[in-house]
């Protein structure tokens, strides 16, 4: 078996001297989705920030495309194809919806066409500043931005938070397409049904540690819920 596109081992870190995430391992291969599950405050977002370079690792290693990521700034990781849609403040509130989408891309919006067709709500609000969107609409904007990028790895932190069910289903459809196109997905979710629909692997976290990991096919919602203490 070839090496996974993205892997991390013993990832430990947090804020300053405080350790939030301890010795978390995981990997995602091209065309595969891994979902990170867990209650609020167990360190899922911190894990994402450690993997994307927004927080320094206290120990552990992150490898993407066979290349160690240590010391690389978030924009350098982005340049290598690591696309990240954060949970909190997922868009630039002071820019318009259009500016959010074209900030780093040329004005040609071809790559957005299928996404905008699926989420017409954005098309109607192109000129509006993103700060005036609802929480769910901001998540959709962030999702559209990330899904349209060409990077091989997509890290999504709670993409479905506050998003209406029909739009969550559309997101799932795009994520299946992305997997079919050979992209690797690492997704933090609270929505179990959504997570299980796309996930090939699952990591459940509690108190900053992995309490359960394995193939999604082997897990039932009941097993997962038991490990999440919900």
């Amino acid at each position, binding site marked *: 078996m070839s090496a996974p596109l993205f892997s991390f081992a013993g990832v430990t870190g947090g804020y300053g001297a405080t350790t939030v995430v301890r010795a978390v391992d995981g990997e995602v291969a091209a065309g595969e989705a891994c979902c990170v599950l867990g209650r609020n405050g167990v360190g899922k977002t911190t894990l994402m920030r450690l993997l994307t370079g927004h927080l320094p690792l206290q120990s552990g290693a992150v490898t993407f495309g066979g290349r160690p990521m240590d010391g690389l700034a978030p*924009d350098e990781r982005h340049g290598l194809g690591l696309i990240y849609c*954060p949970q909190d403040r997922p868009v*630039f509130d002071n*820019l318009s919806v259009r500016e959010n989408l074209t900030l780093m891309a040329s004005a040609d919006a071809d790559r957005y066409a299928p996404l905008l067709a699926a989420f017409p709500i954005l098309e109607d609000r192109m000129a509006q500043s993103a700060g005036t969107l609802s929480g769910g609409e901001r998540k959709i904007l962030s999702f559209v931005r990330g899904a349209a990028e060409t990077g091989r790895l997509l890290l999504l932190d709670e993409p479905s938070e506050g998003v209406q069910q029909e739009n969550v289903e559309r997101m799932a459809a795009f994520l299946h397409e992305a997997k079919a196109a050979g992209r690797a997905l690492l997704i933090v979710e609270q929505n179990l049904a959504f997570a299980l629909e796309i996930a090939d692997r699952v990591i459940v976290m509690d108190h900053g540690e992995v309490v359960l990991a394995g193939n999604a096919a082997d897990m039932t919602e009941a097993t997962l819920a038991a490990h999440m203490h919900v």
Partner: protein
Amino acid sequence: MDPILTTNILNVVYEVSTLAVVVLGLAVVFGLLGVMNLAHGEFVMIGAYCAFFVQTQNLPFLAAVPVALLVCIVLGLAVERILVRPLYARPFDTLLATWGLSMLLREGVEAVYGRGFKSVAVPLTDSIDVLGADYPSYRLLLAAVSIALVAGLVWWFVRSATGRRIRAVVNNPELAGSVGIPVTALARNTFVFGCCLAALSGVLLAPLMPVQPMLGLDFILKSFFVLVVGGLGSLVGLISGSGVIGGVESIVSAFFDRTYGYTTVLIIAILFLWLRPNGLFPRT
């Protein structure tokens, strides 16, 4: 129109527009990096000494512009790397560090040129008749250049891709990195750009003021007052702050004398800090 009134109006326009250029550099750096560069005035001073240096070499006045830009690019890059970048998350330390830098730069220039006043010859000595008032053409040109510079920069900030990216970083630095904006490089370039803007002001203002090592203090103080009055949030605040501070000072100075001008500005700044600490246009 009454020539005295015309002269006073032109003086106000001159004061406000030249002040706005200096404050713009300071404010852009603060907006993007969260760093209040207390050595900003010293970059104005270095620009003025570049004009003096060029004069001693018998070169044309405008040769001072590339000289000052070169000096400030080198200096700005070094300061950003050594002093500013390691202290990004520590605003109070940055204040101390840049204040220390300002002393170092003053002493450094004093070591080379001494404490005495130097004068730079005014490149345009004639005056122009404006609505009956005889106004020095260099001052007029300088006001026009300053207005064009501020307007051009505002336009660029609103319209250009780089301007949009700067606004994105100001709004959400973490997301900015993750969408691929090279945040560190952008911050570095912005810092150097702010230094260059100060130096350019220094060159252009040099013929109209005594060139001496302490001249930067005056600019940093006034720039602060502008930011106190206008608020740190926006270009509108910056321009209105420059209007209030530059305008009041030049009007009061014209009717009484410069000491009263300074005093009035100081009182206004204190009143703002007391009653309206976020300025006219607070950051939202």
